[in-house]
């Protein structure tokens, strides 16, 4: 249970059964008057926002949130299976993963956010390495990075890469933006 004076930016609270994070917080107190705690909050599952204001004696529930470090194991239909070091498994749906599902690499370590036993978000490392499965042949010697072409990685996810990238090259992807960051390895035999 939180009281209004615990409220601050970044705090996670539960409202009508859903977990929220406070994204903006503003405390006002007219002289000699009551404290008013204005909060802007984001639903951690749907992303929708909410404005609420609280008084000193208001109470808020604490969401049952848990963060678990897991490793990605394998895909099973629309579900992605993660495992912790005790081989305990968690299935995360494609819907919860969003675009992050394209950036999973076997044995990659992730943080899974769990609300009331249900996974609601997966935090990936900032950079992952992925092989280019499909792209127009590259222009050897063209090292410019400001001219790009489309390329596809496993699962058909499309990114923009520099012209010198070839099919079979391994590139680094920034999971925050979903964009190309660097070339890691050149395709064997090229």
């Amino acid at each position, binding site marked *: 249970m939180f009281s209004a*004076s615990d409220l601050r930016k970044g705090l996670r609270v539960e409202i009508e059964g859903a977990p929220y994070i406070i994204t903006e917080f503003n*405390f006002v107190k007219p*002289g*000699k*008057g*009551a404290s*008013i705690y204005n909060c802007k909050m984001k639903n951690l599952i749907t992303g929708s926002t909410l404005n609420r204001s609280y008084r*000193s004696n208001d109470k808020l529930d604490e969401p049952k949130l848990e963060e678990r470090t897991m490793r990605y194991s394998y895909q099973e239909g629309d579900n992605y299976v993660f495992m912790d070091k005790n081989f305990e498994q968690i299935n995360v749906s494609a819907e919860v993963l969003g675009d992050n599902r394209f950036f999973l690499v076997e044995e990659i370590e992730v943080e899974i956010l769990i609300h009331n036993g249900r996974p609601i978000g997966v935090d990936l490392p900032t950079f992952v390495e992925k092989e280019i499965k499909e792209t127009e042949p590259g222009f050897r010697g063209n090292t410019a990075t400001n001219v790009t072409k489309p390329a596809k990685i496993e699962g058909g996810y499309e990114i923009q890469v520099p012209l010198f990238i070839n099919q079979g090259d391994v590139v680094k992807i920034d999971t925050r933006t979903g964009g190309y960051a660097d070339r890691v390895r050149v395709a064997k035999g090229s």
Partner: protein
Amino acid sequence: MSLAGLKPVLELRDRLLSATRLFFHERKYLEVETPVMVRTPALEQHIDAFQAGGGYLRTSPELHMKRLLAAGYERIFQIGPCFRAGERGRLHNPEFTMLEWYCAGADYMDILIETEALLKYVAQACLGRLSFERNAQTIDLGGEWKIFSVGGLFKKYAGWNPLENFDERRFDDDLVSCIEPHLPEDFPVVLKDYPAQAAALARLKAGDKHVAERWELYLGGIEIANAFSELTDAAEQRKRFEDCARRRALCGSEAYELDEDFLSALECGMPQSAGIALGLDRLVMLFAGASSLDDVLPFR
């Protein structure tokens, strides 16, 4: 901001502190220091104290300073830390520095004249001029100080009169959402004559028991000081404390014990006086043109 980066602000604060002391000493005020750790804090509906060492950290030096007034010290000022639990925001910090002063024989409008003189004096000493800029808005202390009555502002902008039918929750909400946004920001603004219920330690207006002799000063839309004609009637003060303790208990807040030392000082007789509390950290913030205490408090 880094500690080193705050140097201009800390220098401004240093000039403000010494100019404030000079101002009061020139006017024959005595600087006093009263306990920071107190047996029981002043009872106010919406001010919560931190417990410390079997007692509390003071939320204001008011009760001790009034004991000095009752003992015959007629002009006293104090600069020191006060603590209020649960108050943290852009304009609030649980620990803050208060400038508080009292003058025997004066009423709330006399102390407004002195406040105007003080602010002009310290602005001149700190900034070399009477105006300062904040959010691209110039605030001119040398211009006219506009005085509005609380009843008039509520009738105009909130559509009701809190002096006739006081509704506390509605009063606070409307003050923040209907009144404050309409206050001019380019010159000093004074709100005066509050509902009696919104001033636990103030004297009521002779001839109108609905009105407390209290004003609040706003600079650039920010509340900077609160002043009263002080209540000197011991029986009335005891009754208000008891009411306040009851109301606090009702809404689940701690009902602090009455400060009997203060009440017996009132019983022995305190002269008619005016007193004022001014938030020094906020004044530094305004003079520095900053919009949050984050920009002026080094260890926040």
